[in-house]
């Protein structure tokens, strides 16, 4: 049976973390980018959810914003808004600029 990782209703939940962890700066940026992309109809929320579900085991290992950001990256690659090499080129350029 194909049960997607978001479909967990009725499973044993374990303890629930109720601590407010706040949002890191990059998480706010990622959230803003997601809202811009969905607001501008570049991607739909349904597509982002589907892309997150397709992360498979990574769905469980990633934090919330890591998961949504990786889903967003995969979706934009899928749609051809940029290529993998363009993305890697940009990441390398930023690494050099910030000396990391």
């Amino acid at each position, binding site marked *: 049976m194909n*049960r997607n990782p978001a*479909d967990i*209703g*009725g499973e044993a939940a374990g303890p629930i973390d109720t601590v407010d962890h706040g949002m890191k700066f990059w998480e706010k940026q990622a959230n803003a980018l997601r809202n811009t992309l969905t607001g501008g109809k570049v991607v739909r929320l*349904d597509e982002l*959810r589907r892309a997150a579900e397709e992360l498979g085991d990574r769905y469980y290992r990633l934090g919330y914003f890591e998961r949504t950001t990786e889903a967003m990256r995969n979706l934009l690659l899928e749609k051809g808004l940029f290529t993998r090499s363009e993305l890697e080129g940009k990441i390398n350029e930023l690494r050099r600029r910030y000396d990391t």
Partner: protein
Amino acid sequence: MTPSAYTPAPGKRFKVGDRVRVKTAHPPGHRRTPAYVRGKKGEIERVCGRFPNPEELAYGFDGEPRRVLYRVRFRQRDVWPAYDSPSEDFIEVEIYEHWLEPS
């Protein structure tokens, strides 16, 4: 204010009070019908309207033809085998028409 997404639902298959059963299928894809109600019997509580099909929207298509969405009421003890309560408790889940069959 965001306008309501409600749309009329002409040509709908079910009406309020109809007994329905959720399909037991587990197809791959972006499915929004929770696993815990598949195969369960319930009753149409309301007709929510017609909406673009999220199972298609999820893959970048336009979601047409629109699908009728219903709110379906299930008895908790029909949904959860171990549900232990003397009272008549319900759970309501919104489910698209193509997931429902007459019961």
